[in-house]
Structures are given as structure tokens and as C-alpha cells.
């Protein structure tokens, strides 16, 4: 009973982690950017969906779609306002650009989360669930929305895989994540790849944020932990490796769920963080890292 409960509960939360981390790792792979406003974008998308439903009376589908659009717009704003100007600036030394972008995205994330808190308070919000009710599977009473969440996550990840492996544009993205210079030598504009990756990222992060809002609820307090969990999953899996991130998401998700059920919900995140430290010692490039 407890075993099945951990299995089912952990699967949904891990799928969410996986979806959130995939976009994050894709951007890092392609452009070397660690986007520290990740959590803020997820939360903003979810709060936007909540506001559309709660304040303007939109239905669950319309509000979710609206939330995704706003999340994507924010992701693009992140790219155009904080990342691109630094990447192109002749006044910042090339070697320092990474740290500048890191700081800029961090500050950008704080701006977003403070704005959300200012207009919508820092109380947690929950997005109108698309599917309601519960189903009993293997003796575990589970909200139908949990299965829906896991399904959407995997469909989104599956579509991403098809895009990257089966389409020409997708292959260019994959190539850029392996060797950006090689791609430019083939005559592909790197900027358009960056743009495409940020769009995909915005889509994935917003969907993850809204699903999280339906599943557990979000507030401006969630911003830090969400960025931190995406970051540690990506580092654990190997920076830039999508497969690594997916596996790491499940490792972290199940480790957290098992701790919450078997030890105490208060210690939920600790074992995963310890694992991260151990991996850093023994295999600094992460489980599936290439560099």
C-alpha cells in the first residue's frame, strides 16, 4: 500500500520536475546560459492562469492557455532584456559574460517574483484543475489530476524528443548544444537557434508551472526552491544533457517522496541535496555529463 502510494505519488511529481528541468538544461546546452529566473517564470505563468480564472472568470482551458502565453512572453522578455544585451555587449569581457548573465537572470527573477507578490500577494494560489475527482488505483486514492499531470509532462517531453531528433530545425538545435561553432560553420544562424530554444523553454516552463499550480499550488515563495530544484536536477544529470536531466528528475522526485513518506515530510529535500554533494565529489560532470 505504502509502496504503491510512493510509486504513484513520486511518478507525478518527478514528471513535473523533468518537464521543468528539460527546458532549463536545453538553454544551458545551447547557449551556456543558466537561467536563474526559471522559478519566477514558472510561478508567473501559474499565477497568471490563476488570475485569469479567478479574477476574470475564464474556464480551466482558457486560463491555462493564457498562462502559457504569458509565461512564454516572459521567457522571451528574459532573453531580450537580460540575456541578449549582455551576450552582444562589447563592453563586457567575454570571460565575464557568464557571471553577468547569471546575475542578470537572478535579478530579473527577483523582479518578476516581487511584482507577482505586489499585485497578487505572496499567499499561495492554485490553478483551476482541468480534471477533477479521484480514482483508486492499486488501493491508492489519487486525484485524477495527478495522472493528467504526468501524462501532459510526458507528451510534452515526447514531442520535444521528436522535434529534436526528427526535424531539421530540431537537429540544428541538438547540434548547437553539442558544438555551437560547428553549427555556425554549416551556415546556420545561431541567433535563430537561441530564439527557438528560448521559445521552447518558455513553453515547457509555463506548462510545468501551471501543472504545478494545479497539483500543489504556487506562491512567490516557491520561486527560490523551484529554481534550486531545477538547478540541482540539471547538475545531477549532467549540465546540458536532456536524458541526464530526465533520469535525475526521477531520482530526485522519488528520493523526496520516499523521504516524505518514510521519514518525515519536514526532511523531504535533504537526501536529494546530500546526493548532489556526493555526486559533485565523485563525478563532478554529473551522471550523464559530457563536459
Amino acid at each position, binding site marked *: 500500500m505504502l509502496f504503491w*502510494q510512493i510509486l504513484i*505519488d513520486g511518478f507525478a*511529481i518527478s514528471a513535473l520536475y523533468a518537464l521543468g528541468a528539460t527546458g532549463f538544461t536545453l538553454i544551458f546546452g545551447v547557449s551556456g546560459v543558466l537561467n536563474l529566473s526559471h522559478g519566477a517564470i514558472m510561478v508567473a505563468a501559474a499565477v497568471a492562469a490563476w488570475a485569469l*480564472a*479567478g*479574477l476574470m472568470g475564464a474556464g480551466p482551458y482558457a486560463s491555462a492557455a493564457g498562462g502559457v502565453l504569458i509565461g512564454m512572453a516572459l521567457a522571451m522578455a528574459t532573453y531580450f532584456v537580460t540575456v541578449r544585451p549582455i551576450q552582444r555587449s562589447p563592453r563586457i569581457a567575454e570571460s565575464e559574460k557568464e557571471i553577468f548573465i547569471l546575475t542578470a537572470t537572478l535579478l530579473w527573477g527577483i523582479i518578476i517574483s516581487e511584482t507577482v*507578490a*505586489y499585485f497578487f*500577494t*505572496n*499567499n*499561495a*494560489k*492554485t*490553478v*483551476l*484543475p482541468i480534471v*477533477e475527482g*479521484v480514482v483508486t488505483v492499486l488501493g491508492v*486514492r*489519487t*486525484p485524477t*489530476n495527478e495522472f493528467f499531470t504526468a501524462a501532459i509532462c510526458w507528451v510534452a517531453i515526447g514531442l520535444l524528443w521528436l522535434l529534436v531528433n526528427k526535424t531539421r530545425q530540431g537537429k540544428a538545435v541538438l547540434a548547437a548544444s553539442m558544438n555551437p561553432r560547428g553549427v555556425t560553420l554549416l551556415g546556420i544562424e545561431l541567433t535563430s537557434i537561441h530564439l527557438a530554444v528560448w521559445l521552447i523553454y518558455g513553453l515547457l516552463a509555463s506548462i510545468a508551472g501551471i501543472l504545478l499550480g494545479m497539483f*500543489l*499550488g504556487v*506562491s*512567490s*515563495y*516557491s520561486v527560490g*526552491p523551484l529554481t534550486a530544484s531545477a538547478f540541482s536536477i540539471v547538475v545531477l544529470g549532467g549540465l546540458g544533457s536532456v536524458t541526464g536531466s530526465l533520469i535525475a528528475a526521477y531520482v530526485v522526485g522519488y528520493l523526496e*517522496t520516499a523521504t*516524505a*513518506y518514510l521519514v518525515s*515530510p*519536514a526532511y*523531504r529535500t535533504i537526501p536529494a541535496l546530500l546526493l548532489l554533494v556526493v555526486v559533485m565529489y565523485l563525478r563532478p560532470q554529473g551522471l550523464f555529463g559530457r563536459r
Partner: protein
Amino acid sequence: MHKHILGLLSCAAIASYALAPTVAHAADPIKIGVIAEAQSVAGSSIAPAAQLAAEEINAKGGVNGRKIEIVVYDNHSSAAESVRAFQRAVNEDKVNAVIASYVSEVVLALEPWAARLKTLMITPGAASDVITQNIAKDYAHNKYTFHGYLTSSALAGQVCAAAKDLLVDGEHMKSAVIMSEDAAWTTPLDQGYEACLPKSGLKVLDHIRFSPDTTDFTPIFSKIESQKPDVIVTGISHVGTQPTVQWKSQQVPIPMFGISSQATNSTFWKDTNGATEGVLYQAVSGPGVAVTPRTLPFVDAYQKKFGNLPSYCGYTSYDEVYMIADAARRANSTNSDKLVDAMEKTDYVGTIGRVAFLPKGDPHVHGLKTGNGYITGLMLQWQDGKQVNVWPKNLANGKIRYPSFIKLSSAR
């Protein structure tokens, strides 16, 4: 040349300093600093409610000819920022009294500063018993602090009294699990629950304290369910939306009853997309409940002016401005010690009941008097988007009604 100008300037400065007190004295406003959490739903009512009270008092001519002036500081829910705001309020803005915060940790951090800077401070919403215990321990220093809201142990007492009438006598319930967030205010609350629930007739099967950072409550609810209690007695304030929504989405068949501060907010229905249907929570006031003749006029005036309903600390903050004004009127002074003396003699019918403070010598000195004739509290339930009062009987405007997924033990 420069020397002359400098000399002239300093002469003028000295003159203005010397003249200032005599010139300004008659119309000197009584300044009340308000340090609150502008970004939280509960805290965001504190400053507007104080402002409303000040405007009402000023419209009627003020206090002995002096106007009330409210100076607002946003503490961003941080104790450190609150301390800085308190110092600035007293040292630079020269406030005569401070209304501070609904977070116990913040008020506990400010209490020694109220003592050091000898400035009257009253909280509209913090609950920890330690606030009044500190005053009892060192009255001479800490007498400047007043507890304008119920202590946690008083809250526990009111929840237990309601539980006896509604759950034990009403539904024949026999057992409970306590579920509370780990924070300063819940330590005495939980002790209170453990002591008084058995006396009300509810056996305490387990006691779960969880971190306020918890996002996934599934493990907590599944553990509680496995113990088969008749009711979950809550102590939550920093969290609210998430446990409530997950309680509903997981269809936990056990009612939630107790303190759920966020549920007192009128926006809680929207925050939870209606998942709060059936949640029972203690409060000192509720929409449409005329606890005293002042309650509903206040709610109307607040809603008219700000477009939303006040949170629980809006009511107390509003009353506290009146209490401070009243004390200043009786003392005919804003001298801190005289204000404290006058505040101690407060006997004021406010929006939440008749307010009087426990006297020196009581273990909860400067805490509110509770019970018959003073503040008794209410038990409300969310029903169809509305907050309905179900206890005590003489103030009730509805009956308990549970959502369909709740399986009462008598029916199980």
C-alpha cells in the same frame, strides 16, 4: 562672507528649534506608526484599517484637539526590517505608539525594542503566548507591549469550546489528530490543544507538526487518514491554500476544524478555487456577524473605501487606533508611561467584542480578557463561497454542512 552666512543660518536654525515646540504643540498630531506585512493577505489590511479609524476620529475633531496621523512601514514579512522600521518610527518620525505585525516572530523581535525605546506597541494579529509571558517576567521593562489579539492558548481554548458543542455534542465525535505548522505561535497552541481537546471529549490520536515550507501534503494526509480520527484539528496561518486544496483534491474524508488564518480572508475562496468548501475555522469576526454594534459599520466603511473585506487583523488594527486615541484622551498626554497606564484601564467595545487587558500579576498581563462578557470568538464555515457563522448559537447564521467527500465517522 561665508562665515556670516553660516552664522546667520545657524542662528535661524537655533531659533526655529527653540520656537518649534511652542508653536507646534497645540496642533501636534498624535502619530501612530503601523509596521505590517503589505504583501500578505492577512497583513495587508492592517494599515488601511488603521487609516480608516484615524480618518473617522479626525473627522470628529481628533483627540483633545489633536489629529491622529498614521505612518505606514512595509516590513516585507521580515523581523530585521521590522526592527529598522521601529527604530526609524520612534527616533526619526517621532511616533507616539506603534501597531505592529500579525507574525509572532516579528512581534517578539520588536518587544525588546518597545522596552528600550519606551514606546507603546500593540499587535493586531500575532498570537504567541511568549509575548505576554515576557511582560509578566519583566513588567517594568516590557510593559510598553500590549497584545491586541488572542494568545495561542486562548485560541486553543476557543477551538476546544466550539469543538465540544459542535463536534462532540453535535456529531458524537470521539477522536482527533492535531495538524499544525511549525512556528512560534503554534507551540503554545498545540500545548493548549493537547490539554483541552481531551477535556472537550476528543481523544488526541496523533500530533503532526510540519514545516511551513511544505508543498506536498499528500504524505501528511495519508498518515492522518491511516489513524482514522473523526476530525483534523488545524493550526495553520503561514500556510493555508496548499493544504486546503490538496485536502479537497485528494478527497480526504475527514473534516478540518480549528485555526486556519488564511481562511478568514474573503479572498480565500478564489485563492483555493473553492476547495475551502466545508472548512471550519475559528475567527473573532465574520461577514454579516454583528459581534458588537460596531462590527458591521466598520466592515461596510472598509469595503466602501478599499473595495475588499478586511482580514482578521483589519478589525483589531481598527480597534487599536481607537484604543490608543482613547488612552491618549484619558491620559491627556502622549507620554509613553502615561499612555501605558491609560491603556491598562481600557474598557472598550470594539469590532470583535469588549476589549480589556489582563492586569499586572496575571501570567498573560496585557493580553485580552476572554470568555463571557469579553471576547468569545466564532466558528465559521465556508459554504458556497460564503463565510457562514455556525458558533456560538446566539450569533450563528447557518448550520454545519460538509462537502460530499467527507465521511463522518458516525456514518462510516
